[in-house]
């Protein structure tokens, strides 16, 4: 089995969100970067579990500049076998998906994993686009994946319920909480990652379909109104009469 895991670099969850250049650029000053949690905790770890249980080669791919290499090395340290970095800073989902599809066409994977979404741009788009570009089925927001021969069984927690679906490989999926438990790379993995192949490729020609015009921060809250613990009825009254939400 041959598996590809798409890895995105995102700011740490505690990073201060600020913008520069007249609110057109995310301010990276002092920001730590991590592997997008959905890519790492669920997609990558599930891929590694499949490798351990059934034997598989796990490739990683990221579309990003040289500064994404620390993140991809960490993914290799967790157990990926080799990695591709497509050298581009593009933020457009379609451009990114086109690059991933280009590599996937050459490599012919059985399973392509993405995370449910990235925690920075929250696009939840790349997986579906890659599937379409490759003509493969796409199962989004899967919380469980089992592979038996050429068939994948996936669970999705949809609005108001849960569904189990079956798909023949190859497929593309986006991974959600529940699929695996986060792991920490060990020393051996970290050492091994240094010498694992990381191929840098230049981007293929592809269109961009969107562009970010500007960023905004949410308006500040007006301030909290405190209600004494012995006047709970007052809270209910305020929610009814002032906030009008009950």
């Amino acid at each position, binding site marked *: 089995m041959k598996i590809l895991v798409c890895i995105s670099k995102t700011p740490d969850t505690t990073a201060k969100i600020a913008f520069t250049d007249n609110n057109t650029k995310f301010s990276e000053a002092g920001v730590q970067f991590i592997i997008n949690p959905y890519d790492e905790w669920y997609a990558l770890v599930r891929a590694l579990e499949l490798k351990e249980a059934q034997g598989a080669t796990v490739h990683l791919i990221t579309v990003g500049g040289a500064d994404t290499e620390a993140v991809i090395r960490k993914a290799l340290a967790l157990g990926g076998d080799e990695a591709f970095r497509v050298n581009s800073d593009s933020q457009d989902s379609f451009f990114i998906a086109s690059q991933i599809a280009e590599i996937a066409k050459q490599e012919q994977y059985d399973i392509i994993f993405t995370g449910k979404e990235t925690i920075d741009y929250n696009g939840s788009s790349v997986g579906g686009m890659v599937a379409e570009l490759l003509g493969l*089925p796409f199962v989004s927001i899967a919380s469980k994946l089992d592979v038996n021969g050429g068939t994948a069984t996936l669970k999705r927690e*949809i609005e108001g319920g849960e*569904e*189990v679906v079956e798909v*023949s490989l190859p497929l593309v999926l986006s991974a959600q909480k529940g699929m695996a438990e986060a792991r920490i790379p060990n020393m051996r993995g970290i050492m091994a990652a240094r010498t694992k192949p990381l191929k840098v490729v230049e981007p293929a020609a592809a269109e961009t379909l969107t562009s970010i015009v500007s960023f905004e921060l949410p308006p500040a*809250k007006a301030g909290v109104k405190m209600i004494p613990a012995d006047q709970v009825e007052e809270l209910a009254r305020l929610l009814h009469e002032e906030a009008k939400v*009950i």
Partner: protein
Amino acid sequence: MSVIIFADQFQGKVKKSALEAVQYGAQIAQQLGVPAVAVAVGEIDGAELSALGQYGATKVLHVADARLNEPEAGAVTKIVAEAVAKENGAVIVFAHNFAGRSIAPQLSARLKAGFVAGAIGLPDTSAGFVVKKNVFSGKAFANVSITTGKKIVSVMPNTFSLNPGGGSASVEAFAAGLGDADFKIKTVKVETVSGEVPLTEAEIVVSGGRGLKGPEHWGIVEDLAHALGAATACSRPVADSGWRPHHEHVGQTGFTVRPNLYIAIGISGAIQHLAGVNGSKTIVVINKDAEAPFFKAADYGIVGDAFEVVPKLTEAVKKYKGN
């Protein structure tokens, strides 16, 4: 030209998030002076479909194929693409829900139409087509320009309140010529949690954190949720410890919710938790620690012991809920 809206259903009823998408699409259609055409799939009552007119749909194209009661993403992508061709769709709208998240990106790649996921504002068409969306999991917004001729937008659930009017849409049977090869994903089992409010669509969410000390104490959360007709949610460590199911985990690495009212009980208000809930219109925090960071993000707060405060709140809200 037209605006095409995918109106997905669950067990024969159009989802609330889909009604919001229809209304959003109809508003764009009105701006552009073109018809708003909804696309529905699977077995649904004609009356349920013509009622989409109340949200501004002029016409509904209905593919009444029972195989689509669970909207197979590949098949629906094909249907919507054909509807776009037939009706000369310029803007295509989805709900940013489970179906929308799988179908919209596939359609985007198929039509080479730019896609903005999770819109929280109507498009600004004064210079191009710019849509506001959440980024950094709700810690900021981005204004994104779609630079292609056709445009795809998915609408963040619970962002636009529904204002049904008196209209009625015409319903037209639509055949998209689906073959077996279009159904690559087979649904083998569907389990529905009946009577429960889906978390991402809920107008009120009651959420519990580690301050509740253990799963055996969730009764007070559920009682309050029940009195309010609310969905229940939790913080990440609560789901990680198995006190509550994973699909209740909200925050930066869980679900994003935008209810009218979010009640946080025994949750400290870590930045990763706030990210998933700070789009809520009103936030109530109940925490025994006056220094809990959540109070800074709250509209109303009570410093007190959840085990005393919450049952009293349940009794107090019953008065306003009439039960």
